[in-house]
């Protein structure tokens, strides 16, 4: 039989390999069922996965309570939830508290402003992600959008009611901390990275090294504590910059130190010839950096930079410990309400989903960008 097969392939060349060599069946045979033991493990894991998925569906969808009645005083009656506790999810906590979780203590009638800010943030991210907008104007778009967000959140002009920032909270707060953090940390990081590599100015270099090493040597929590508790102690009486600003500066300084090291990696990876060619043409230091070095160096470090952004996005949740009302804090406060105590699983699942959407989009985007750059490098 084997000889006929050989003859067959010899006379009519096959377009594709046979299914048993390359198809999904072959893949499964090679990877999942290639021995006695691996078949057993595969089946056992399959059983575990299927049962847990089924149980989750049962809990999250089939047995779930989606809403509960409210009495005329506006107090919820969570009896339905208590009855199914353990066997079904109580999504009623979300439908009852979602506005508090999303917007914190922002005045209820004004929450459309906070919602609009979320939309603006997302729009800003989408625009920034498109390479077509990668030019000077993008900086103005950022400045404009962030200003607009500031106006919307604070109000006090254009007929908007003034909303002091200690009532801000929820998702806008998380996005503010992360985005303003990034917007200021990134340029700072570029300067620090350049400063750390400057050979002409040893004082600047030492300053940058000290800053990076100091910040990297302490956890973000302690930076935030310092910003909120210790910093005011050192300020002259009467001068007390507000807590949000102090936390924001802490996040910026912290993020910039890490980002600077990533950018420095890119600066080092760029070949010496590029610096020399720019020098030989008579470009000044800043022209050389802006036109030749940074465009190439930053491109090289996109994956670790995005990794960094994802990290700092999630790190903003640490402001919980100094009492700033970000997404995590408002969720915790929502759970403190007597009717909803004990339903943290549901709330945290929703919270995780929100964080996941943002972080996963960043990660997918960076992967796409990387692929695009490696294509254009091969051009």
């Amino acid at each position, binding site marked *: 039989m084997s000889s006929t097969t050989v003859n067959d392939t010899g006379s009519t060349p096959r377009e594709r390999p046979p299914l048993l060599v390359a198809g999904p069946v072959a893949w499964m045979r090679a990877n999942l069922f290639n021995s006695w033991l691996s078949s057993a493990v595969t089946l056992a894991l399959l059983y575990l996965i299927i049962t847990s998925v089924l149980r989750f569906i049962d809990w999250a969808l089939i047995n779930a309570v989606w809403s509960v009645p409210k009495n005329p005083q506006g107090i919820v009656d969570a009896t339905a939830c208590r009855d199914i506790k353990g066997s079904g999810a109580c999504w009623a906590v979300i439908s009852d508290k979602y506005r508090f979780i999303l917007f914190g203590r922002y005045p209820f009638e004004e929450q459309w402003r906070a919602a609009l800010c979320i939309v603006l943030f997302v729009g800003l991210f989408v625009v920034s992600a498109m390479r077509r907008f990668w030019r000077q104007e993008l900086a103005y778009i950022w400045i404009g959008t962030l200003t607009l967000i500031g106006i919307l959140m604070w109000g006090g002009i254009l007929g908007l009611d003034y909303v002091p920032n200690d009532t801000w909270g929820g998702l806008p707060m998380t996005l503010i901390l992360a985005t303003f953090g990034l917007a200021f940390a990134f340029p700072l990081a570029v300067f620090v990275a350049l400063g750390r590599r400057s050979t002409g100015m040893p004082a600047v270099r030492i300053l940058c090294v000290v800053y990076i090493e100091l910040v990297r040597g302490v956890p973000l929590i302690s930076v935030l504590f310092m910003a909120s508790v210790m910093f005011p102690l050192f300020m002259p009486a009467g001068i007390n910059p507000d807590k949000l600003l102090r936390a924001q500066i802490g996040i910026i300084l912290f993020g910039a130190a890490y980002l600077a090291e990533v950018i420095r990696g890119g600066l080092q990876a760029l*070949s010496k*010839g*590029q610096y*020399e*060619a*720019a*020098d*030989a*043409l*008579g*470009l*000044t230091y800043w*022209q050389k950096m802006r*036109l*030749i070095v940074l*465009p*190439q160096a930053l*491109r090289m470090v996109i994956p670790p930079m995005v990794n960094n952004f994802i990290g700092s996005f999630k790190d903003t949740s640490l402001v919980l410990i100094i009492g700033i009302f970000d997404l995590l804090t408002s969720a915790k406060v929502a759970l403190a309400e007597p009717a909803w105590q004990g339903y943290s699983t549901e709330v945290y699942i929703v919270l995780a989903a929100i964080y996941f959407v943002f972080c996963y989009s960043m990660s997918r985007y960076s992967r796409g960008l990387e692929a695009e750059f490696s294509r*254009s*490098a*091969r*051009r």
Partner: protein
Amino acid sequence: MSQTAAQLDTQLNSEAAIVLEKVNKWFGSLHVLRDVSMTVAQRERVVVCGPSGSGKSTMIRCINRLESHQEGRIIVDGTELTDDLRALDTIRREVGMVFQSFNLFPHLTILENCTLAPIWVRKMPKDEAEDVAMSFLTRVKIPEQAKKYPGQLSGGQQQRVAIARALCMRPKIMLFDEPTSALDPEMIKEVLDVMIELAESGMTMVCVTHEMGFARQVADRVVFMDRGEIVESGTPTRMFEDPQTDRLKLFLSQILRGH
């Protein structure tokens, strides 16, 4: 600056494009340039050769201060190279350089590579810079590649772009640091042809190269370096046919055997 030095500069300005006076340089404890003295006249074409590690690349890189020397004086186009940044800017504007590894900017198109320095350093309007760039790209025979990126070009084409890029600054002096050493043999000629054409147009050139045919054809003078010092120099015919020192004889025999 002292009276005599000023006088010397004025005098040199009218005569010499480049003057090196007892230049010494160390990399750590390694003495790479030993009392190197050399004068290149306006419109003179000098070829520098020597075994690897002889300091010839270091010397040429000192001329536009990609490396700094520690002792002695270097005067380029009447300006002495010191730590003064303004003097350095002036000199780099007048001195073009071509590298062994091309060093084109990979994120810019060929045209942008050529217009970058004229626009930013010479403050030339963009249209004019593009016209200048196209005329030099035509001169190095690749105007049709202007919209491509360096990565899409062959080595020989890239090196010709690098020459055009340097010429776009309209330099008075061109430095070539082993421009053909990184090229495949079949591409060497196209680059040498451009360099010969440039030499014949009267450009002051200092060229580190092992291409003896090129030296014979265009050089006014060949300088032979070994172990950080200038061992011998003279016209190409004299150097190749009547070498005076054993070191040059040995070098020539190795070069010729290699070819």
